[in-house]
């Protein structure tokens, strides 16, 4: 249940930030969405099993964590991180220095489309 709530909050915040648009918000939004999805994948392995999945004589399948979702998440984190960094670079190139506007987009069209 904790994970479900965490996913809901992260996904809602992420979606809100992404749809608000504008450089930094976009990046932060995608980071939050990625976290939400990573939690979904971890939850898919069953969060109630926490023992280290190392094969030994005392390995008990009932309490051992499923290593596969962990591998999934590790891969997903690396990929999403790489893409997000590239997006950061693109945002930096397509929006002129916006420190004076505190993140407001300098594009008048984008400003019109915002709520």
């Amino acid at each position, binding site marked *: 249940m904790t994970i479900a709530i965490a996913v809901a909050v992260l996904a809602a915040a992420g979606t809100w930030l992404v749809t608000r648009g504008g450089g930094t918000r976009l990046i932060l939004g995608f980071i939050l969405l990625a976290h939400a999805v990573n939690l979904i994948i971890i*939850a898919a392995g069953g969060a109630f099993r926490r023992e280290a999945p190392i094969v030994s004589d005392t390995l008990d399948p009932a309490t051992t964590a499923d290593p596969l979702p962990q591998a*999934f998440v590790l891969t997903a984190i690396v990929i999403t991180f790489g893409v*997000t960094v590239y*997006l950061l670079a693109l*945002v930096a190139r*397509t929006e002129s220095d916006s420190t004076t506007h505190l993140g407001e987009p300098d594009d008048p069209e984008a400003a019109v489309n915002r709520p």
Partner: protein
Amino acid sequence: MNGSLLPLFFALPLLAAVAVLVVNNRNFSRTVALLVPAGVAVAATAAVAATADGGVLVTQVAGWPGGFAIPYVADLFSSLMLVVSAVLVFASMVFAFATNQDESRWFVPMALIMTAGVYGAYLTADLFNLFVMVEVALLPSYVLFSLRGDRSSLRSARLYLIVNLTASTIFLAGLGAIYGSAGTVNLAGLAGAGAVPVIGFAMAVILIALAVKAAVVPAHNWLPATYPYASPAVTALFSGLLTKIGVYALVRSITLVYEPGSTVTVVVIVVTLASMVVGVLGALGEGTVRGVLSFHMISQVGYILVGLVLAGALGVAAVVFYLIHHTVVKTSLFLSGGAVEHQRGTGTISRLGGVANEHRWVTLAFFLAAISLTGLPPFSGFWAKLGVLQAAIGSANYLVFAVALVVSVGTLMSMLKLGTGVFWGRDPNTAEPDAPATPWRASIVLPGMALALVSLAIGLYPEPLLELAGTAGDSLTDPSTYVEQVLTR
């Protein structure tokens, strides 16, 4: 062809990309960039020959037992897609070199890595590996998109990245849901599992992500807003490779996971018919050559996918045939249109005209492909559309039949618009006497012409491909061999 060679389709282009980066010599990179797709085409033809009887090539990576390993699998459908992709990568590379696309030392390595991801996506039978392969194809595509470096192309690169990142995020969420509900992400292990409501729903999340990547209505708007802003060679590569991964994965997962007649059928019919209509209407309203062609892709994706839910194996065979035909013809059109754009320096229809007087071969190449796209004999497009119409009649779905026919008229109209605007009439720029006429290089026209002739050849002699598509359709509708081979070998 042995199954254990399959990972090479992924590994070789990747290693070649590294070699090109290390050597950093233009002639070397050009040679490698042409040799690799040529080699892949030959190897993939061998794979087609090995699977033409409906057989399946499997290799379980690292020797884990089937069901646990991450398998590379080639059945007839994926082998055919490999051949087509390799051929059009070759043609696009020739065009890219003719337009000096490789001025940037990043072009060839990035394009090679992208093809590695595409081949990998065609060969994987594991949903998570599919995600990884798609990302391997997408990451270099972001770089290729922004190679031009001007503001408008960077802006569309940003939009393109945002759309794909969103789709990938949705895909991962669906993947988690699938693993949680089915306990496996192996496609063969999920065969028929769509009948279980939870798994069917989880799979639908993945289908949404794939539909975004394939630019199916209502997730289509990103495509015409981005593709025309990359350089012509890059658009040609993207059109033949990237959206096609989405289409391929949709075909593969819908046929494997869902039973015929499930709720997905209705959804597929609705979105494909909407794609056909919206795409062709959008094409009529566009003002640039590649803008028109991009909207056509949306319309054609509708034609490709509608067969999935019509008349069983007959419909799926139509899907396979249409997908191959479309990939060839669309890339040909993007190459010929791109050649015009490169020579004239603009793709805006109102500022173009009279290309037919200037270069008759590029005009011929464009019109051969355009007629094929419209679906007139004796081109491959005729057999492709005939297949869809037959499948529509076979399942007594006259709505699909009518829409497919009417939309063809729209396709013809928008092609006439390109004809009168770009190729016939007078060049509006001839008033400027100081505009120097750049000579046309043969290598800029040849790739588009070659692909148009491939379409003509298929149209004149369709039996072999129709037969292969039929076999592929059969094994997609009855995936028992695929499942058995992937899980037990």
